[in-house]
């Protein structure tokens, strides 16, 4: 009996030692790494190609990424309360508000970012910092339409409407585009009823009402020839040889920022190093170029050549912005309404 106990104790001790030994290198490794949530696709490619090497070089920190869309990041962080599955979020304005409301972020101190002075005013706050701009407008196929569309209402008129691809409120760019269309018909940021009234009239003509993820594929295959989208999608398609042009609607291009936030309970020092690396002029410029097309927020980056709808970040004030703290509470109702209005 006693021999058995001794054996068990020995085994436990050995296991603990082995476990400890196994843990030690990983602790040491964790010191030099940061886990960031990252949008799958172009963003993930861009960060693997540009940010990871820059972070390694500047701070000797390894970048590990978890490919997750904004909504998935919030869902995952909410599901794993207190033990964040990653250190840094990357979010659109809507999910950002949800994250703040759900208490998912660590208080953010912009002063810890050496690049702060290079950003336009108001880019950073107590919750996080903008790392890329997104511009939303109309994209169309110039081979199919001799005259480019001019305004949001053109989308609902011939010849455009019968080649139009619509998406709903699932994405940020879809939501803000619909708001702008609603405004043209008398609506506002919080009233999209006029959009629904107009959509009902054109529903039989519309070429496709699709999942946002399917839209670039549908455009490439000629199923649709006009859509609302962001400059990044349009740039990516164009770089693949698709006939596509981005148009600034008469009322103005929509702009919003993609922001980064530190997860509650995350290890912070490396998170700040990572976010600052993303904001440095060299990285921002590389991210702007094909095939990535991420619009920069650092004023030192020369814009000009990237096909962006502005030549200087100070023009940002002229773009249409939206207040997501007003939009978020209405969005669930809008999504439900959209389903009901468009369902066959």
């Amino acid at each position, binding site marked *: 009996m006693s021999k058995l106990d001794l054996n068990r104790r020995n085994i436990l001790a050995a296991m603990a030692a082995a476990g400890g030994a196994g843990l030690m290198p990983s602790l040491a490794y964790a010191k030099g790494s940061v886990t960031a949530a990252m949008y799958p696709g172009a963003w993930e490619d861009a960060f693997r190609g540009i940010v990871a090497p820059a972070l390694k070089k500047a701070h000797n920190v390894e970048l590990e990424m978890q490919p997750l869309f904004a909504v998935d990041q919030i*869902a995952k962080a909410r599901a794993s309360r207190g033990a964040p599955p990653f250190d840094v979020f990357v979010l659109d304005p809507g999910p950002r508000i949800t994250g703040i409301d759900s208490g998912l972020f660590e208080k953010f101190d912009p002063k810890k970012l050496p690049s702060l002075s290079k950003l336009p005013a108001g880019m950073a706050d107590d919750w996080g910092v903008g790392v890329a701009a997104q511009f939303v407008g109309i994209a169309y196929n110039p081979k199919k339409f001799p005259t480019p569309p001019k305004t949001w209402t053109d989308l609902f008129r011939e010849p455009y409407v019968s080649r139009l691809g619509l998406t709903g409120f699932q994405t940020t760019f879809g939501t803000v585009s619909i708001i702008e269309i609603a405004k043209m018909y008398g609506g506002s940021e919080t009233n999209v009823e006029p959009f629904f009234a107009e959509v009902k009239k054109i529903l039989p003509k519309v070429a*496709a*009402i699709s999942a946002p993820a*399917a839209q670039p594929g*549908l455009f490439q*295959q000629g*199923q649709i020839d006009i859509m609302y989208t962001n400059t990044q999608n349009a740039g990516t398609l164009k770089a693949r040889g698709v006939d596509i042009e981005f148009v600034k609607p008469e009322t103005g291009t929509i702009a919003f920022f993609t922001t980064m936030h530190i997860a509650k309970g995350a290890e912070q020092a490396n998170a700040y190093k990572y976010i600052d690396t993303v904001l440095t002029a060299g990285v921002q410029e590389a991210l702007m170029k094909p095939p990535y097309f991420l619009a920069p927020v650092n004023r030192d980056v020369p814009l000009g050549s990237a096909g962006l709808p502005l030549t200087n970040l100070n023009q940002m004030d002229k773009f249409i912005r939206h207040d997501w703290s007003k939009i978020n509470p209405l*969005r669930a109702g809008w999504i439900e309404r959209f389903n*009901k209005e468009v*369902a066959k």
Partner: protein
Amino acid sequence: MISASSGTMPKRSGRLAALTRPAEWQFALPLALAFIAFFAAPLFMLIGVSAFDDDRITQLGFAMWRKFLGDPFYWKVTIDTLELGLMTVAASVLIGYPLAIVYMSSGPRVQRVLLFIIIMPLLLSVVVRTFAWIVILGHEGVVNYALMWMGLTPTPLRLLQTEFGLVLSLTQIEMPLMLLPLISVMSRIDPNLRDASAALGASRWRTLFTVIFPLSLPGLVAGCMLVFASSTTAFISQQIIGGNRLVYLPLLIWQQSLVVYNWPLAAVAALTLLVSVTAVVVVISALGRRGTRYLNVT
């Protein structure tokens, strides 16, 4: 219960001995534990979450059930989802059954080629399969190109984002689930039965309906259940080929859980999908059993 050899032991350790004695059920233990941990427990959590009134999961109540069941739109979505499954099952039976017969009556070399073609859709990622269907059915796709070239239609037909296109592509995508059980059951049918039927004067059609069909019924039923369950829940295909004008339950679940974070309503939609799909699967299997009995009696 307690065997004679352990009769001298105290009762408690005897029971323990009986439990720890090697037996077949112990082989199933790892699977059973995994099932409890990763399926049964989450399922009960899902049921629990559905019994909350608010998206913060603080207020107990059945508001979400009332909202869902009291809205004709959600009933329509549920029925549309089941209809999609039934249409896909019907199409895969119509195409799959003759194919299975062709498979059974071909030589081993042709069988190998056929089997490869049947399994092929399973070897491709669902995303590739789905995008391939965009290329085939699209406005400027292969089908429309062919139809216009033959002069059958002056303008491209709308095939994508229609129920027809969705059923067509789901039928191709789910076909292996129909054919594999069907073929495995059919290949166990004794070939002598077919010869006996012919020797007794039955025509080939009569042999098919009175001999082959009843004996293949278990495989057909298994295939129908798999195709039904799989096509009603095929979120990616429904989304990309069907588009957002065709609203099915998986889309609602995704929107409520991942876009608006109303987990209670998502749980209600998920349980509705689970219950309604299970109900139809039970009906299919009951029909199969009755059919087998009926055909065996007559």
